[in-house]
Structures are given as C-alpha cells and as structure tokens.
C-alpha cells in the first residue's frame, strides 16, 4: 500500500471519527473541539490534493475565526439554556439516521458508477509549479477570471458585519436592568394570549416574565419575552 494512501486513510479516519464526535458529544464545547479536530484533518486532506493555500485558509478561517466565534457564543449563552442531549425524540433520531444511510447508498452509487468526467483543464502540477505554486496560481485566477465574484464576496462579508452589529448589539441599557413585563398583540403571530393595546390588562395582571420557569408549554417551559412596554410597538 502506497504511503499516500496510508496517510489518507489515517486522516480520513480521524476526520470521520471527529465528525461523529461533533454529532454525539453531549457537551457542545466538546462538539466544537471535535469540529476543530475534524477541520485540521480536512486541511491535511487539502494538502494531499495540492491545495496548500486552501489548507491554510481552512485552518485560519474555520478554526481560527468561525470556531472561536462559535465558542464565544457558547460562552455567552447561559449554560442553563443548553439542552441536554439524548432527551426524548427517538423517532427523529431513527428517521434521521435512516435517511443518512439511504443517502449514503445513493451517493455511493453516484461515486462508484461515475463515468462522466469533465474536460481536463490545464492546471497540471507542472503548470502550477511554473507559475510559482498553488497560492500564486489561485491568486492569478482570483484577480483575473473571478474578479467580480471576489468583489461581491467582499460585500457579503460587509453584510455579515452589518448584520451581526444590528442583531447582536444590546439594546438600550434599561432593557437589561428592567424586568420585562407585558405582552403585546401587535405584530404577534397568534394574538391569542395577548391583550389589545390601550385597553390592555392592568399592569399587575400582566404575567411577569422573569428569567425562566413558570410559563406554560407554548414556549417549551420557558418564558417568551416580547417587549419592554406595550408602547414600543406603536411608536407612541
């Protein structure tokens, strides 16, 4: 067995194991760490296919940026809010697993019967080496053929930043301090449990939404916070 094959199998095995770890780990932090492990191995696989640049990107962007971000969010989310794993819904798991297996079969058919192969390009290892390596070659493509897409991706990242700021920025300071109370019908989907504006329930009767607990099954045992005060929906 050639060495590259052995290396591939090792990388692949760790990769798949780590991926499974992501899915089954009880603690989300463990999942994240498994994911890092998996991505490191994927970067190794990239190198095997001559995509050194992408391997580096994979490590820097995924493990360096995305996963750190993810871990931050994990930390920001109250640990009490995390659901325990293996809690009910076995049907979902069985069906999910079954679908996965069937899809595996289908993909396997597609891979193993593969006959139609696209036209061969000119980016042979020798040609790439002549340009100065993988990074050089990709750079050239990126700034010639794919210039427009490259520019548009910069916009995508801009939108990502704007969106993250808009959504994650905490609202007015008061909101964090003041316990939220009162619910609202305006803009609310069901409008059933919500009283109308203006003629609403007296303040004392409005359910006090504090932390968690108490509030029936609609929110899965948790409280749904709609608004600070009724007026903020009406611009009054």
């Amino acid at each position, binding site marked *: 067995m050639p060495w590259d094959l052995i290396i591939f199998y090792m990388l692949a095995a760790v990769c798949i194991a780590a991926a499974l770890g992501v899915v089954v780990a009880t603690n989300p932090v463990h999942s994240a760490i498994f994911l890092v492990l998996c991505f490191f191995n994927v970067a190794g696989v990239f190198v095997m296919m001559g995509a050194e640049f992408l391997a580096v990107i994979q490590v820097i962007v995924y493990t360096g940026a995305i996963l750190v971000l993810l871990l931050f969010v994990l930390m920001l989310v109250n640990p009490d809010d995390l659901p325990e794993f293996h809690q009910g819904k076995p049907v979902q798991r069985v069906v999910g697993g079954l679908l996965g297996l069937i899809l595996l079969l289908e993909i396997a058919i597609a891979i193993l019967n*593969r006959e139609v192969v*696209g036209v061969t*390009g000119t980016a042979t290892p020798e040609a790439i080496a002549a340009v100065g390596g993988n990074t050089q070659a990709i750079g050239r493509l990126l700034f010639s*053929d794919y*210039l427009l897409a490259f520019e548009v991706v910069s916009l995508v990242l801009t939108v990502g930043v704007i969106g993250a700021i808009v*959504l994650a920025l905490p609202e007015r300071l008061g909101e964090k301090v003041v316990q939220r109370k009162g619910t609202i019908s305006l*803009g609310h989907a069901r409008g059933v449990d919500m009283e109308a504006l203006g003629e609403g329930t007296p303040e004392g009767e409005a359910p006090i939404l504090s932390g968690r607990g108490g509030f029936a099954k609609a929110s899965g045992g948790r409280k749904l916070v*709609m*608004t600070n005060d009724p007026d903020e929906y009406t*611009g009054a």
Partner: protein
Amino acid sequence: MNLDLSLDLISPVWRLTTPQLIVFFLALVLLMLDAFLPKAKHFTVLTAVSIGGYAAAIVALYWQHDKNESTFNGLFRADGLTVFLSLILLCAAILSVMTSASYVDRLEGRMPLGEFYVLLAFSILGALLVASAGNLIMIFVGIELSALATYVLAAFAKRRATALEGAMKYFLLGMFASALLVYGMTWVYGITGSTDLDQIAAHLQGVVTGSESRQPEILFALLLVVVGLGFKIAAVPFHMWTPDAYDGAPTPVTGFMSVAPKAAGFAAILRLLVQGLGPLRDDWYLLIAILATLTMIFGNLVAISQRNVKRMLAYSSIAHTGYMMVGLAAYNSASGEGRFVSLAGDTAQSDPGITSLLYYLFAYAFVNIGAFAVITWVQHRGRGMLLEDFAGLGQTNPLAAFAMTIFMVSLMGVPPLLGFYAKYYVIVAAINADLLWLAVAVVLASALSAYFYLRVVAVMYFSAPSRELRATSTPLLNAGIALMAVANVALGLFSNQVLDLADFWSGAMTVAQAVASR
C-alpha cells in the same frame, strides 16, 4: 476555465453593469448617510435617496435592454433575463421602501432605518447579481449575498422573540439548503469540468445526445441542485421555513421576502436549471411539474385554515410558487409556439413557458407586496393581523378595503386584474406544452384559493367593525398601496407590453443555445 499562466488582468465592460453599480453605490451612500446625517433627517433623506437610487437603476436598465453580451470573463451577463428580472427586483425594492419606511421607523420599537435600507439594497444587489450571473460561483455568491441580508431583515424586529425565531429557522434551513446546493454544484462541476454556465450546457449537450437514460452522477447533481433551489423558492416539500419566517418577520419585510428572494431563487433556477442544465430538460420537467402540483395544492389547502392573514398570505405565496413552477415545467416543449423576437441582431423564438413564469413574477411583485402593505397599514392603526382585525374595514376605511379587495381578487386570478393575466399565461403555456393535467391542477388550485381570499373580502365588508382604528398618518405607505392597486388594473390591460419584455429573455436563451450548439 483554463489557467492562464501569464498574469493579464481583464478589462471588464463596466457600462454593462450600470444598474448593478448604481444599487451598489446606493448601499454605500446609505451607509455613509446613516452614519453622518443627523438623526432627525434620516427618514426623509434616506427614503428619498433609496427610492431615487432604485429609480435611477431602472432608468439605467433601459440602456441594457437590447444587449446580449457578457463581461467579467463570462461572470456577468447582460441579456433579456438580466433586464427583466432586474426590473422586477427594482420595482419590488421601490415598493418595499414605500411600504416599510414608516413601519420600520415607528413600530416595533423603532428599528434602525439606515441599516434597514442598507440591507435592503444589499439583498436586492445580490438578487440582481444572480439574475445576471453567468457562472456557478456568481450564482452562489449572489444568492448568499441576497439571503444573508434577508436573514438579518427577517430578524430585524429583534425585540420580538417570534421575529428572531422565524429568522433562526430561516437561517438554519437556509444554510442547510445552501450546503445541499453547493454539494450539487460541486457535482455539476465534477461532471462538466467548468463553472461557466454556457460551457456546462455545451458539455452536457454532448453527453446527453443519443442516450436515453442518464448516468447516476448526472441525476445526482441535477437533483441536489433542484432541492437546493427548491428551498429558495419555497417549493413543497422544501417550503417549511416559509410560513414561520414570513410570520415572524416585520410585515413589510415579509412582503419583500415573498418577492425578492423568491425572484432571486427563480433567477438562479432560470440561469442554472434552464440555461446551464437545459439539456437535461427532459429529466427535470416532470419533477418540476409534480412539485408544482404539490406546492399549489398544499399552499392553498393549508391557507384555508389560517386565521392570521399574514400567515395565510405566507401559505398563499407558497401556492403562487407552484403556479410559477408550472411555467418552468412548460419550458422548451416541442409543441410550444413562441413569439419571435429580435435581439441584438439575432432573431429567436421565445419560450412561452419561461415568458409566463417571468410575467408571473412581475405581476406577483405588485400584488403580494400590496397585500402585505395593507396589513402594514392596519398595523399602523393599532390592530393586529388576524382576520378579525380586518372586520368592517369596508365601512370605516373604504379605500383601504377596496385596495385589499383588489389585491385579494388579483391573487385569486380574476379578470381583468394583473393576477388573472399571470395565471392565464401560465395555463396557456402548460396547455401548449401538452401538460393539460397541470393546467387543470392550476385551475383547481385557484378554485380552492377563492375560499380564503374571498373570506378576507367578506370579513371586511360584511362584519361589523369591532374597534375604532387609530388615526395615523402614513402618506408614503398610502401612496404605495394606491400605486400597486392602480398597477393591478392598469398593467393588466397593458399585459402585452410586459410580455414583450419578458420575451426578450426567452429569445436570448434560444440565441445562447444556438451559439452553444454551433
């Protein structure tokens, strides 16, 4: 694409991209204005700049309208489809600005208007880029740009848990579908060796000719793409995010979401499925037809039992996706008789199926945004969006009720309104394509839909008003509603002109195919 060993930077034809550039600069200008303009002037200036920008882009479309060229090494195409879809998207953008300005500025705890407009512009820009894409990568990047901005818009009322919930579902499933789409595109790339749509078509044409059955990898690639794009346009059974995301989003955003991302999804379908995978038409048309039937029937059926008008319209928009897919299924049938259009020197036969789909999208923008605008209008006046909240609107506010009636009846497809013509052309296209059963399904589904559309009308006119509406001044929103109501009547009469425009794309496509087969 081949690797060019010498580094020669391309010199793109910028003039072809004028409308897209205008929207791009609009977004940047809005961003700057938002940062540096005094808060008091935000509403007027930003709204005016937005509408002006989109209007300028529409004007700029005029110089694109007879082109059939590509630039940026084939990444960007300026042809009939680009123009027509851009027209739809820019109209939708203007209408969305008109209907959402006061809502965003006043309701749900005063959302930041500047960011809203910026995201709207980026969402439109993404969709515009999909419409003009000539490459798998551009389709993907454009769709994601549009979707990303829309995720944020859907979550824009972040004080309301339901808005975030809807956005979360939209986002997670959107990414899931994106993964399927990318995987599908991966396979398309794998079997053709190119990401350029024309080359994909040319390569597939070679593979497909002379073989009755398909290699599994081709089917696999095709079906993954269909699933990924089916999600974007909300076709059953990939539709389930729609009602929740639409329900949760701020109402004017819902109107926008039901049109622009859907148009972007159909643009991607037209580019990828029709232009790129067109040679596989015989493989996908039946699937599309069956999905269309499921979509129409499911959407209309579930809409019947909704008491929340907004949610009802969400289901109805699923059904309308189904009608549009009928036009898609009728694509390139042997027996179809198209009209001849002349385009950039080439005379080509248009495709009635695609033409009807494009016309439907166009009509749909004016009807659906309008319907959501009336809900917005009611919310401005301190009411919710349940059926009961519309009770007696006919007596208290006859004009609003009249507008809503127009929109409902138009959605139902009653002549001589815009919605009727849209459905009419779709049905004609289906019949021309020998898909008689599909045409019958459209008619049956429409009959089903009468129940819940007319119920809104009935509630408005025959129920006693339960509560006084609060007086609120929303001139821009009123103007928008009036505009759309008039357009529903007027554009129906001038459907031929719109149809001519739509024909450009169908013509352009056959030209492209002729070029590809040369």
